[in-house]
């Protein structure tokens, strides 16, 4: 991959930056730049027409946001891992484990509860650390390493649960309340998610680590020759990603009121899709915070609309597939047209 980028990317963006450019190309570029947002708006319009008030209501708006919270948190974690040029198949299992751990441990005096949450997040980070070590020190391909670690995590999960879901202790209500109560119509979770997103944005855009992550992801060797400790950076990224997955798992338990053995597994593919949808937002195929958030919202709105409209199960699968391919395809293809067919694509 990267070897191709080395050849195409630069010029691509030269072309992209182009000011004195034909209207047609500019149109295409708009599609390229705004593929995902385009689909996003499109969905709003379509569902708006089909479902009117049902869809366009404050409550449904809040509803969509609430449903986006968990995927946003997990997808943001994955974003940083993708940015550093790696991949993580274990985040879903990681979230599941965090969920059951929370359910089994969260109780007692407030201080203890806080410690429990911190512990759970630490475990998530630890899993990330394990991934990072295996990827950097052993040099195992990230897909295999994280698949392996993921497998260990599932094993641990089974040790904790024997496979049956764990109910949150009776005194765990304030955890479930982050979903049920809040400021006015806005549940706490939305505020939490917003905070998490801001933190991630700051990490990526206002800290040296963020720059180093982009550097390592951009050209591993060049970054190391610049004196950046790529191994550390990669391990850090995996740890942050793991911690975010754990937070997602905690929220999952808060949402469901119990720790589900496989509760978080499903988030792997969806956050992954969200990240790529996001990479088609504004910047040219680069992963970033805003993009990921938009990506998640696009997916959630799509499913929310479908659910409200009430299409059959098979239709839901079709829509999901189409949505993914359309949004990502539109922007990548458009970008391709701008650059003209080239070697390496």
């Amino acid at each position: 991959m990267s070897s191709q980028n080395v050849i195409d990317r630069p010029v691509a963006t030269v072309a992209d930056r182009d000011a004195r450019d034909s209207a047609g190309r500019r149109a295409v570029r708009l599609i390229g730049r705004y593929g995902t947002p385009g689909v996003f708006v499109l969905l709003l319009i379509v569902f708006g027409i089909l479902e009117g008030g049902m869809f366009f209501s404050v409550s449904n708006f809040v509803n969509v946001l609430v449903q986006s919270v968990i995927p946003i948190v997990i997808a943001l974690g994955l974003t940083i891992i993708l940015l550093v040029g790696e991949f993580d198949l274990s985040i879903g299992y990681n979230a599941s484990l965090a969920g059951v751990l929370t359910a089994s441990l969260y109780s007692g005096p407030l201080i203890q509860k806080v410690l429990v949450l911190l512990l759970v997040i630490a475990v998530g980070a630890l899993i990330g650390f394990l991934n990072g070590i295996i990827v950097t020190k052993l040099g195992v391909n990230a897909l295999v390493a994280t698949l392996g670690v993921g497998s260990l995590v599932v094993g641990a999960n089974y040790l904790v649960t024997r496979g049956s879901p764990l109910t949150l202790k009776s005194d765990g209500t304030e955890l479930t309340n982050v979903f049920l109560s809040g400021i006015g119509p806005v549940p706490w979770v939305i505020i939490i998610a917003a905070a998490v997103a801001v933190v991630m944005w700051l990490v990526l855009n206002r800290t040296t680590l963020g720059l180093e992550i982009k550097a390592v992801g951009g050209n591993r060797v060049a970054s190391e020759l610049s004196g950046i400790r790529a191994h550390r950076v990669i391990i850090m990224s995996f740890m942050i990603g793991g911690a975010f997955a754990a937070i997602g798992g905690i929220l999952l338990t808060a949402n469901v009121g119990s720790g589900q053995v496989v509760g978080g597994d499903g988030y792997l593919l969806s956050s992954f899709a969200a990240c790529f949808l996001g990479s088609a937002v504004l910047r040219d195929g680069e992963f970033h915070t805003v993009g990921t958030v938009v990506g998640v919202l696009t997916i959630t709105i799509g499913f929310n609309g479908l659910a409200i409209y009430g299409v059959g199960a098979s239709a839901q699968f079709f829509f999901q597939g189409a949505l993914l391919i359309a949004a990502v395809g539109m922007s990548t293809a458009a970008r391709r047209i701008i650059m003209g067919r080239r070697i390496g694509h």
Partner: protein
Amino acid sequence: GDEAVTIGIVQLDTSTIFANQEAEAQKAAYEALGWETVVTNSAGSPATAISAMQNFVQRGVDAIVVQTYTSEQITSGLAAAKKAGIPVFNTAGGEAGVDMAGAIDINLAEPINSLVVDEVKSGERFELLTLVFESGTPCRIRNDDLLTRLKDYPNVTITRQDVIVPGAQQQAQQATSGWLQANPETSGTKHIIWPCFADPAVGAVSAEKQLDRGPYSMYTWDLTGPAIEAIRDGSMNGVAWLDADKSGQAIADMIEEYFEDPEGWEPRTEEGPHEVVTPDNLDAFLEKHPEVTAK
């Protein structure tokens, strides 16, 4: 829907057989009553189920039917429905209670597990293999029920092997063939295989065939086409058949009854209409229910 009554069904997933059949049956029943139906597939994830319920609330359905999930799995979904004053019914999720207006129990643990007990009563030595998908509520309920029933039968050695979805079938196949290798034919010892739903059952049967062992007693759920064949050739001894149509009708009736007088309503749980099909009653059963093979 405005004046037309709309029911929102939160389907467990699109791969669990009884979930599909039962959802289909419900739809039919509601349509018969001139009601609308909206189905969402929760892909086995409580969080998705909750989202689905919240979406139904947004749509303003008149009642929600949740498959399988127990009330503690979908707390905030139930809360959302409660706020909107929408009754939530449940199939296969265990007892109805404070936040569940009503339930049809279609796990059918008792009818099958009692058959197992009948066989092991004889007191001979038994090797029993359970293939359990613990995170699936029906499986868990069935397995817990079995264990309580077999508590006082020391002559039964239980080997538990877990399976997960997806892949339950090949896992069951591997687990079963391993178990068969580990427990060779020995006089005085009988083998029983107890898969908690259709997929592992299919896997177990093919493992038996592969190693050319048995067929041993096998008790399981979900009367599918393959299961009927298995009963006929003796590789299954007792399979629970959920009368999906009747149970769909039952939940419909329950909801209709609720609408007549929501205030005076008392939460209640009914057992799903079912039959246990064995080699002996197979033909008679098929006589009585031609629709099973028609499907």
